[in-house]
């Protein structure tokens, strides 16, 4: 018997009825809250800017971006990797916590899944942009064409296409799958005919049949079991874009696990960010408790430590390789023209995160929010310094050249943030932010435990 009663993850007196009313009510309330409307308007404007800017870039050409030789990949790939990273924790939280039966999963899983989907949308768009010739995207697909050509299977860019599209379909399916019973709940509670039909169509006629639930759980386990390999393989494959090359600073064998850890780090940071914002915006402080924030903070710390292990490995191996080019890249990262990016990254990802060792920091929403933001900035800078400092000064001094973002780079990057926020805000108006059926299981288990425990 534990000496101290653990702080509950569920609020006192929450029943199936009250929980359903509260969460479904958030979606079905006829007028949106003021804060939501303001945020939605801003993000919609940014998303519109994203569309306009990308339209311009596609019609005029990618020359509008700051990419050039020798930094041929620049911002688009930095942002692709960054967004993919954010997408990852979503799946992991949902799936791995499901498999390991973690009781703190239910209130944050939906947010994580939605975040994963919208981040992968941004990543997918950026992946198409970073091709440079988006109009020839179909060349990545193996189809019988009149050129008799097939994709170059030895190229990581082709792997990317398969990885990102698999991941996109998976996150979409996973999110919809988890929403299915909740759509039925909303269908049964919607008052207007329009909403009834909308949720009715989305719910596929779900009627909570016991056999359906049994199969649902089977499929859930299959999805959860393949989720971890997907997470690991997708980011791993993205990292191979860089790692299989001969560029000093790219060519490291640790890149796949290093990118996975970085992805999960930034992903957990984003989930923490969203959890703090959502609980404030929708008044869910009793469902998403400080204990949930504590767990999220621990996960952030864990993956930050793995990332830092990779930093140590990278720096040491660059020196240990005995190769003057590998060593020069590192000296350059610390002292060269992009050195501020490296040191800022170091502060964000190596120093500030150490605050998460303290329980009080993890449980403070404000502190967690601040660390979530610095961690995401740090992870962006990490990708920036990998891409820029490795390529701007390669083997031949005659080929060296600095590169920086143009206004278009910055506008598109900002716009992608806007698109992400826009989709997420639209989502929380259309679907419950907390998975109602998972919460019901949690409530059932809590009640059951009480009954059998006493």
């Amino acid at each position: 018997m534990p000496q101290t009663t653990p702080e509950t993850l569920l609020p006192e007196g929450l029943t199936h009825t009250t929980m359903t009313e509260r969460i479904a009510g958030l979606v079905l309330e006829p007028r949106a809250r003021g804060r939501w409307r303001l945020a939605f308007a801003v993000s919609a404007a940014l998303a519109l800017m994203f569309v306009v800017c990308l339209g311009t870039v596609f019609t005029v050409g990618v020359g509008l971006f700051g990419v050039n030789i020798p930094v041929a990949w620049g911002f688009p790939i930095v942002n692709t990797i960054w967004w993919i990273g954010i997408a990852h924790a979503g799946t992991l939280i949902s799936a791995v916590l499901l498999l390991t039966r973690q009781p703190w999963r239910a209130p944050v899983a939906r947010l994580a899944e939605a975040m994963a989907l919208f981040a992968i949308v941004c990543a997918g768009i950026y992946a198409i942009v970073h091709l440079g010739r988006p109009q020839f995207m179909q060349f990545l697909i193996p189809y019988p064409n009149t050129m008799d050509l097939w994709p170059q299977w030895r190229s990581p860019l082709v792997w990317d296409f398969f990885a990102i599209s698999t991941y996109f379909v998976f996150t979409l399916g996973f999110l919809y799958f988890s929403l299915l019973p909740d759509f039925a709940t909303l269908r049964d509670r919607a008052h207007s005919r329009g909403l009834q039909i909308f949720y009715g169509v989305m719910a596929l006629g779900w009627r909570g049949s016991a056999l359906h639930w049994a199969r649902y759980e089977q499929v859930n386990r299959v999805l959860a079991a393949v989720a971890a390999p997907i997470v690991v393989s997708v980011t791993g494959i993205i990292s191979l874009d860089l790692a299989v090359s001969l560029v000093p600073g790219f060519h490291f064998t640790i890149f796949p696990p290093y990118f996975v850890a970085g992805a999960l780090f930034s992903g957990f940071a984003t989930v923490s960010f969203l959890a703090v914002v959502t609980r404030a915006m929708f008044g869910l402080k009793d469902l998403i408790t400080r204990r949930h924030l504590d767990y999220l903070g621990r996960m952030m710390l864990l993956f930050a430590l793995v990332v830092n292990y990779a930093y140590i490995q990278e720096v040491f191996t660059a020196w240990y390789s005995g190769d003057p080019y590998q060593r020069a890249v590192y000296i350059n990262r610390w002292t060269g023209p992009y050195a501020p990016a490296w040191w800022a990254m170091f502060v964000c990802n190596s120093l500030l995160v150490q605050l998460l060792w303290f329980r009080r920091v993890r449980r403070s929403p404000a502190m967690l929010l601040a660390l979530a933001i610095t961690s995401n900035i740090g992870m962006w800078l990490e990708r920036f310094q990998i891409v820029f400092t490795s390529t701007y000064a390669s083997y031949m001094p005659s080929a060296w050249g600095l590169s920086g973002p143009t206004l278009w780079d910055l506008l598109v990057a900002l716009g992608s943030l806007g698109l992400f926020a826009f989709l997420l805000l639209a989502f929380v108006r259309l679907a419950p932010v907390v998975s109602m059926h998972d919460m019901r299981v949690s409530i059932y288990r809590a009640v059951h435990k009480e009954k059998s425990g006493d």
Partner: protein
Amino acid sequence: MTPRAILPGGIALLALGALGAALGGAAFASSWLAAALIWGSLPLGALAMLMTQGLTGGRWGEQSRPLWLALAATLPLFAAAMLPLLFGLHTLFSWTLPAQELPEVVRNKLAYLNRPFFVVRSLGYFAIWLGLAWALGVWRRRTAPVQAPGLILWLLALTFFAFDWFMSLEPEFYSDIYGLMLGTGMVAAAIACALLLGAQHMDPGARRDIANLWLAILLGWAFTAFSQYIVIWSANLPDEIGWYIHRSQGAWRPISVISFVLFFLLPFIVLLSSAAKGRADWLMFAAASCLAGHILQICWLILPAFGGWSAPQVWLVPALVLVVGAIYGAGYNAGQRINRGAEDD
């Protein structure tokens, strides 16, 4: 573990090592190294499991804790087995040659790869591991809460240990994923060993949890091993690809396939079935396969660095593996007996 078990075992090991050193030759030294690392992997992996179990708790942890403790208690034997090798560095490591005979890339790293520093580092690793084992209650009743920093220390020590004792056998080669690959491999082998010895005594729930953890670790190993392979294979740089070329020539090619099948593929297929995860006999089969694969894998990692097989190695390696394994078994048994005694108190 008490000195009763350590002393005879350690003395026997030292005597054997001294004999080998007297006979001399890289063949003996490399076989000795491979045998020591094969068995030494188990207490190292067990140490990590001990800390993981301390962090997560749970029923599987309570049931398997004695096994990790007993396995970790063989750590001094591992240290004793490695000790003679510190006197034979010149037979193992080509970077001990005069600097002018070394290629430029190796000369560039002599600030790290030199005998005094190497010996100090090696002693440091064992100091860390033995210290952790002591703090975690392997030889005493109390457990200090060092799990989280302990895991970090363990991984860092293991990584540099891997650089020193595995990678620097071929001093041109470098791969920064090596520590992770070796770490996951060692933990997987330790779990296999624990399952082989203790799966029967656990309840199905705990078995299932350990089996799931084992599956995750095995997948992690496969991921890191494939990452290293695909990156080096694609880039095809001379300093790196040589490592794989040495390991895919002659007998090493079939050995690499067999060890992959035994170490990963067979256990993976068994673990795919959720029914098998709860059954002791299936798990013990998978564990035996994994351990056999582990033996081959460590040989595959160490021995190709020394060129072709020499005649004495054909019998030296199996003999040493058996001798060292038997001494380990004795040490492990002693450890377990002590644990049981502690539980009875």
